[in-house]
């Protein structure tokens, strides 16, 4: 076994859909909860697929697909309480969905209508961050504030395997440890940072880094939604209790390219992709639901229909989306008055109006 093979990781559901026990992490779940997790993953995949399609049709500038990472995102996000605060990266559409954010916000971002634009307070879900790893420090600072407020809530931050190479992520681990901040570091190791694999990002497994900073780290099967849920739930409870940060490495696989601008066939062995297709997170839970009789054909058909309906709504909404005017952007740069912005906006309006006047004449 090399350092880059998954090795020991927390698993509660095998790829064949069998429930297995784990000495440290157990999960009590009702049939309704299990069906809910399945539905979340289907909806996330449907929205994501529509993102890829709309980019191909020229409606979006870019789309980073979450395909293959549904269990990591849904499992961890469903462990959160409403008043926990989340700092996502830029591929966490499934987490967004669980937080109640209309996916249309994310489509606006990748269309170029906004750079985010939603209200983070409304769903306790911060804006996407595209600079790799920056948000891990923001989450840590936010968690320092949560601790100072004695709020009894937790903060979760999402980042990828590539981000662990950034200094900001190591600094965040250290600040969180030093200040005992209630933050859960959730790393989706999808094994690819664009074209660079794990062997070009690190030598020691990600989860082991936590020990060096002075807090626990655990690796979980990232394609097992139940394991992701159980481990994240435990980490959040630990953080809320004042025991400090924890690192979770969800070992998963990026089934698609990095984004729609990438061509993964240039650097990736198709055999590897096929191997991971057999570990599909949705199929895995689906098998379990069928085997145990917790869901019937009608449920699966209805869920697929819901996914198709969501995709259709997103498609028509994006196509009907008007381009915003630049004039509104001037006033968003500063909160307080700013003479330069006011001067430039006045000029922009006058210049724009001169075309209208010429057109009328």
């Amino acid at each position: 076994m090399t350092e880059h093979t998954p090795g020991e990781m927390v698993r509660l559901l095998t790829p064949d859909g069998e429930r297995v026990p784990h000495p440290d992490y157990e999960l009590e779940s009702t049939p309704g909860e299990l069906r809910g997790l399945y539905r979340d993953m289907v909806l996330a995949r449907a929205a994501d697929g529509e993102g890829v399609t709309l980019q191909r049709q020229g409606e979006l500038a870019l789309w980073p697909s979450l395909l293959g990472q549904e269990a990591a995102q849904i499992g961890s996000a469903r462990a959160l309480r409403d008043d926990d605060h989340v700092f996502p990266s830029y591929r966490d559409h499934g987490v967004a969905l669980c937080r109640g954010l209309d996916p249309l916000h994310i489509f606006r971002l990748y269309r170029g209508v906004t750079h985010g634009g939603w209200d983070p307070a409304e769903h306790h879900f911060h804006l996407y961050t595209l600079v790799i790893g920056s948000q891990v420090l923001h989450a840590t600072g936010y968690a320092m504030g949560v601790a100072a407020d004695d709020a009894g809530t937790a903060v979760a931050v999402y980042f990828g395997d590539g981000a662990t190479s950034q200094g900001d992520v190591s600094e965040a681990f250290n600040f969180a440890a030093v200040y005992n901040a209630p933050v859960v570091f959730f790393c989706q190791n999808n094994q690819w940072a664009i074209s660079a694999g794990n062997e070009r990002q690190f030598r020691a497994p990600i989860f082991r880094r936590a020990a060096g900073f002075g807090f626990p780290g655990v690796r979980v099967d990232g394609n097992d939604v139940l394991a992701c849920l159980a481990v994240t739930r435990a980490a959040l409870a630990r953080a809320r209790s004042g025991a400090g940060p924890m690192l979770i490495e969800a070992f998963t696989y990026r089934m698609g390219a990095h984004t729609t601008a990438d061509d993964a066939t240039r650097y990736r062995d198709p055999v590897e992709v096929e191997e991971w297709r057999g570990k599909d997170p949705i199929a895995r839970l689906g098998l379990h639901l069928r085997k145990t009789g917790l869901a019937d054909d009608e449920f699966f058909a209805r869920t697929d229909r819901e996914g198709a309906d969501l995709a259709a709504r997103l498609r028509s909404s994006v196509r009907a989306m008007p381009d915003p005017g630049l004039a509104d952007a001037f006033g968003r740069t500063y909160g307080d008055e700013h003479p330069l912005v006011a001067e430039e906006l006045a000029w922009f309006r006058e210049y724009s109006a001169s075309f209208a006047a010429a057109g009328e004449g």
Partner: protein
Amino acid sequence: MTLSLVRAINEALRGALADDPKVVLMGEDIGKLGGVFRATEGLQKDFGEHRVLDTPLAESGIVGTAIGLALRGYRPVVEIQFDGFVFPAYDQIVTQLAKMRARSGGRLGLPVVIRIPYGGGIGAVEHHSESPEALFAHVAGLRVVSPSGAADAYWMLRQAIACDDPVVFLEPKRRYYEKEPVDTSAPAAPLHSVRVVRPGRDMTLVGYGPTVRTCLDAAAAAEEDGVSLEVLDLRSLSPIDFDGIEASVRRTGRLSVVHEAPVFFGAGAEIAARISERCFHHLEAPVLRVGGYHMPYPGGRMERDYLPDLDRVLDAAERALAY
């Protein structure tokens, strides 16, 4: 009361901590030590470790977590130990701190103040004497200010902390121990306004931070030769009070901008361009710039020749007046 500039900073921080429970100070060695310049002396003792945070030695970490605290509703005031050590935090400042309001559709303000002792003249080793203001002023979303004396230091810092936008607050370290009366009962001027610190007729000198004193010395020397120089303290580099500069230049017809930072692409270039556009028919000479050379800040034994001094300011005045 009469205070040194660094003492005025201390008083302003003390006042902000006392008035607003959401104000927190963050930085390296700012607790028990009181900061390497003692700007935070006694504050951790009086307000506690949860208000005055000694941080790990990581500038990006300091600013990145300050952003998180601001998102949580706090008003962090960050101390960067020296100008040349701000760059590990530059990414967080430029890509995150400055842009957050725009990215959030105007919703999220980040009231973070980044205090940076800056400039040369103290015989320091490398990375301890730099003037990086243009690198911040160029970034939309940031405000950049620099006081030249104790009274402004007190009030501009109070105003910066009260501001809902991020402010880079540049403290002229070689003027830290110069004293002047400070009235803490009322602010003298708005944060982003130019101030006429010495009226004159023949030419306008614009300085800020450490070079205001240099300009005043030059104006005093010129007066002995019968030349009347008006001195403006710019005070704010983003935004710049161009109306205030324009009003002066319309009277004097001549302008020289004096800063320690390299002349190339510096604040003087922006002021020269704007004032040339606004005052073209009032100018008797091109707008001149006096500042640092295009080289890394030199060793302490060479800085006398690098820094704009009284003679170089007068040299520029002579050239402008000879037009």
